[in-house]
């Protein structure tokens, strides 16, 4: 029971982290139609910047400053890279961000080396929030979850309750009309891109201290974030939240399950046959944990191609 509760909570927290990164991605996509391949690289940059600044500014200030720096890089990428190739179409923009993600990952390897760096949370945050039975639950995880939820609420309120939000939403749906009404749509695009990058940077700065900070973190998380965005429906913030939680819980629960397809088939009396077949049949669910999200994505694409909260078709 304890283990179940713990892995449920771990799953929720991991899902919230996924949401922090995918929120920016899905907003950018909904607005500009650009799938930003470099988005997870911004997450990585956030972690590395915070690691570098931690020594000079202390943990909290580093966590605040590094997303701002990442947001600045995002603005530069939009203004000087994406806008230049906009006329070549979305595929071209996707390829360009793909190349940028490559450059960012390789630059990180150049400056910090191709191994994990020692980015940790400060000792003052390293305590248990509560304990259940023999196991303790780290408070830092709760903090990460809290930041993600606060972020969701802020973005949601910003988009639905403020004037800026109205302009942004109108620029998403009818960019030319918004422009005709006198709003500076390119500026809005740049702002959204920078804000999305900053959100990913914040996620990296917070999560990098808990998970490992290494040059591969962008790739590992990036693929998962794409899955989240497709499952949730491109451009939908609520969908991204739902899909993140679903995938987070699913992967963390699967790790704890120590049975295979053969065990399931044994209930129907076909266990012996399945064990003889081997391969996928006898593979434990726990070792399939990394594979499950992709299977879920293919399933969603078959059943509901637009994603959970996306438009149809």
């Amino acid at each position, binding site marked *: 029971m304890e283990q179940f509760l713990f892995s449920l909570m771990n799953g929720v927290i991991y899902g919230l982290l996924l949401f922090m990164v995918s929120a920016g991605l899905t907003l950018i996509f909904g607005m500009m139609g650009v799938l930003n391949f470099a988005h997870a690289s911004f997450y990585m940059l956030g972690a590395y910047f915070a690691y570098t600044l931690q020594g000079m500014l202390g943990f909290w200030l580093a966590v605040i400053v590094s997303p701002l720096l990442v947001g600045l890089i995002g603005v530069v990428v939009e203004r000087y890279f994406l806008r230049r*190739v906009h006329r*070549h179409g979305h*595929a071209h923009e996707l390829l360009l961000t793909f190349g940028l993600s490559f450059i960012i990952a390789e630059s990180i390897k150049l400056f910090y080396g191709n191994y994990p760096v020692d980015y940790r949370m400060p000792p003052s945050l390293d305590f248990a929030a509560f304990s259940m039975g023999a196991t303790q639950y780290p408070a830092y995880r709760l903090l990460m979850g809290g930041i993600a939820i606060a972020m969701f609420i802020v973005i949601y309120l910003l988009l639905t309750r403020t004037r800026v939000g109205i302009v942004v939403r109108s620029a998403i749906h009818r960019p030319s009309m918004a422009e005709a009404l006198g709003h500076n749509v390119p500026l809005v695009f740049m702002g959204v891109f920078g804000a999305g990058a900053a959100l990913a940077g914040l996620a990296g700065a917070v999560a990098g201290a808990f998970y490992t900070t290494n040059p591969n973190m962008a790739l590992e998380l990036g693929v998962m974030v794409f899955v989240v965005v497709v499952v949730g429906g491109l451009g939908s913030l609520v969908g991204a939240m739902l899909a993140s939680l679903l995938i987070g819980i699913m992967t963390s629960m699967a790790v704890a399950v120590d049975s295979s397809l053969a065990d399931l088939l044994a209930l129907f009396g076909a266990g012996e046959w399945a064990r003889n077949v081997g391969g996928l049949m006898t593979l434990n669910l726990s070792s399939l944990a990394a594979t499950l999200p992709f299977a879920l994505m293919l399933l969603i694409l078959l059943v509901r191609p637009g994603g959970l909260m996306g438009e149809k078709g």
Partner: protein
Amino acid sequence: MKKTLYCCLAGTLLLAALPLLLSQGLLNAAIQMLIAALFASAYNLLCGQAGMLSFGHAAYFGVGAFATVHAMNAIGGTGLLPTPLMPLAGAVGGLLFGGIAGWFATQRSGTYFAMITLAIAELVHSLAPHLKTIFGGEAGISTMRMPALGLNFGSTTQVYYLTLVWVVVAMALLYLYTRTPLGRLTLGLRENRHRLQFLGYNVHGLSTLVFAISAMFSGIAGGLQVLSNESANYVVFDPSLSAAAVLNTYIGGVQVFLGPAFGAALMTFFGYAISDLTRSWLLYQGILFVLVMMFMPTGLSGLIAIAARLCTRHGLGRVLPVFLLAVASVMLAASGLAFTIELLQRLFSQEYRSLLQTHPDAAWPAVMLLDQPWRPGAPLTWSVPALLLAASLWCYRLCRRRLQMLCVYDEQMAMTAPVTIQHGEDAA
């Protein structure tokens, strides 16, 4: 048309003569270049011709590789399928897996398609290490090239010729494919899907077929890789291989048939030649890719086409200075950039940092680059790349002005030409 054919024949003959000219190590690199060229061409069928951007083509390469390795172990080069025909197993594997994956992936187009292909590749990549019976786990599966048809395939030269024959045949087939009605429809998929649908074609079936064919040729490339390495490991499913296909194809240029092959061969060669000189080859490749995407979307082959057009329009004699200036500018910029990156790489390397930590009070020691010591604090160290880049910019400016002058001169010629005729008429 005939000229192109002769060019291709001459190129093939040159490739066939390579074993006489090259050392064993270079010949191995040539095998890798040929395989990469075939893989990029197969990939280009999907992304360049059909307009479907895939980020997970390593999956089909890998499936082809493992199909071949299992076939080689099972058949052992005897019977109807001797060793030289083994990549056929890779082709079948690629075709089948590509058919299934393509059926899923082509449900959607555009950005969604790209993400689905990525997810399928990751699915295989994350599953492969766990299925030890099929993919052999960490150690992979090894095999032997069994003697067949009087050849023992023991030397690199024989493997090279085998690879060359396969690659030339496969490339010829890929080229002939573009001339068939199906090949024309593939272009239609890229240009206007709705219209094809409206004309009564089964667009989903067609996309799946194109996907499967592209996967089949990727599978052949994977099979050739196995023939040359005599082993396969789940590392072939690594995303970096898919990334390499994308980078190579677009650096080469997707609009010309041989562009991707050219790009892949060039990049593989540089990867081989530079790999012991630098640790940041992938960074250079990424920078080159971004530059190509930003400033010459037609790739390197497009650049050659532009150069050829300039030559025919203005004559070689007058364009030559422009070319020389352009080449000088590129070389200067490349050396300046490479100098900066290599210097930074050495300054931030682990060895240098530990050196700093052992002597915290001493001045920063010099780093070795091009057999010269460079002090990180000295202005000379940083003025070298700055000067190189400035010189490159100057050359670029000069080159651009010359090019503009050429164009203006041409326009003036075009303007004055009718005027002289008018004078003639007046006189008459």
